[in-house]
């Protein structure tokens, strides 16, 4: 069943066309990764899907009652706003202390962090808090916009393992923007390349089978490869018409 679909989606920001003619759909339980160069419209695409941006043309259809766990790429909390982690996790819906504690534990954060101010967290802790907040919605789909931005290499690996664990428990779909191509190649059912429009998409099988990506992936995430293995029963051609990734 389709969770989110777009048809001929066009987004304009400040008079500039950022995305045009995007036809896209993501189904239950599917893992889709979005790649593309800087400024290609990846974040804009994610924001349009969660309803943060209105289309200039075309449509975005979300399944009725769809719960989205959205982790934005950046979130600036104004220092004039006092906000504990616990209070942030209860926005906008009040969560009871047990649910908050469970979400913190699942994302690998200590109990004591609940009372700390959001603005006092490290980058890695903040990313985990954002994910914890997304989990509290019991999402049908996680929409993650570069969730590992600003994390160091072990931090990136740990974060992807965490996402995989969470996905296995919830059985939710995952749509994420990623620059970590080695993860993309073996973890995703489908890869979408965006550059103002969808320039190519398909199963990452061909690339993921390349030994250099296997090697990179195996070291980078400390054996997470096994967790990420998926059966791909179809092979189809897709050409990458841009080569900005290593």
């Amino acid at each position: 069943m389709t969770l989110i679909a777009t048809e001929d989606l066009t987004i304009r920001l400040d008079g500039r066309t950022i995305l045009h003619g995007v036809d896209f759909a993501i189904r239950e339980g599917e893992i889709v990764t979005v790649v593309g160069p800087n400024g290609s419209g990846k974040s804009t695409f994610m924001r349009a899907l969660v309803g943060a941006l209105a289309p200039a043309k075309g449509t975005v259809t979300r399944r009725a009652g769809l719960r989205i766990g959205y982790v934005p790429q950046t979130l600036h909390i104004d220092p004039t706003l006092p906000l504990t982690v616990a209070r942030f996790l209860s926005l906008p819906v009040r969560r009871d202390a047990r649910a908050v504690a469970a979400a913190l534990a699942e994302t690998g954060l200590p109990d004591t962090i609940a009372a700390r101010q959001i603005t006092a967290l490290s980058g890695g802790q903040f990313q985990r808090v954002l994910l914890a907040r997304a989990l509290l919605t019991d999402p049908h789909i996680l929409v993650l916009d570069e969730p590992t931005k600003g994390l160091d290499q072990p931090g990136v690996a740990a974060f992807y393992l965490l996402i995989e664990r969470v996905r296995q428990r919830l059985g939710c779909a995952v749509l994420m923007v990623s620059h970590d191509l080695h993860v993309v190649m073996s973890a995703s059912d489908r890869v979408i390349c965006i550059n103002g429009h969808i320039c190519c998409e398909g199963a990452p099988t061909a690339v993921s089978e390349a030994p250099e990506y296997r090697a990179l992936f195996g070291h980078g995430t400390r054996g997470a490869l096994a967790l990420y293995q998926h059966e791909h029963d179809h092979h189809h051609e897709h050409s990458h018409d841009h080569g900005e990734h290593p």
Partner: protein
Amino acid sequence: MIFDGFFLRALLAGTGIALAAGPLGCFVVWRRMAYFGDATAHAAILGVALSLALDTMMPVGVLATAAGMALAVTFLAGRGLAVDTLLGVAAHSALAFGVLALAWTGQKGVDLHRYLFGDVLLVTDGEIGAIWAGALLLVALLAWRWPALLTATVSEDLARAEGIHPARERLVLMLAVAVLVAMAIDVVGALLVTALLIIPAATARPFATTPERMAVSAGLIGVVATALGLVAAFAWDAPAGPSIVAASAVGFGISSLASLFGKTHLG
């Protein structure tokens, strides 16, 4: 002698406004809307002139122009000019045109000073009733919209992903500020309304750990500062509006110093 009818009426009017201004002012601080408060308040002077010219009730004219300014600024923001430039233009032109309009209405005995700095001694029993009705309405409005307002303040994207409309919540806040301006113009005047919004919130900030605590503290701090300011005004025969703002400013100074030396600052 201090607890005569004038003082009690001033106290009732001032504390009613402070109670609503504290929590509302927190949003003005969090969303960096101080200049917006000025633009809305200054537009109120135009409303005074309009009310005198059309012979309508003062709060109606003031509310109409303040709300009109709020809507105009919201509509124009993000259409070219930087927001602070736009608000600066709006705030000062509203003040200039308002003062000119008051002069043009040509009525003898129109006391400009009263509308710029307020005169709480002239507040009637009916106005006190209106102020408290307005204050309770504003507090109820904020309590009702609180989760959506707060989420939209933290992140408009997160809010939209939760089905909240940030534009609607922004409109709620802008109109709430317009209502507060209409309530407060008699007490502190158009030039000092923004102080009632911002100073108690800024005073509460260093000691608050959650938005709710900051909002409640700001309301209480505003009430205490208003009472102290009025006591000082009556004791030394000083103008009431500026005394209230001065008392709030002293409170802010103490809070800032305490957080600096006490290291209780958690932000």
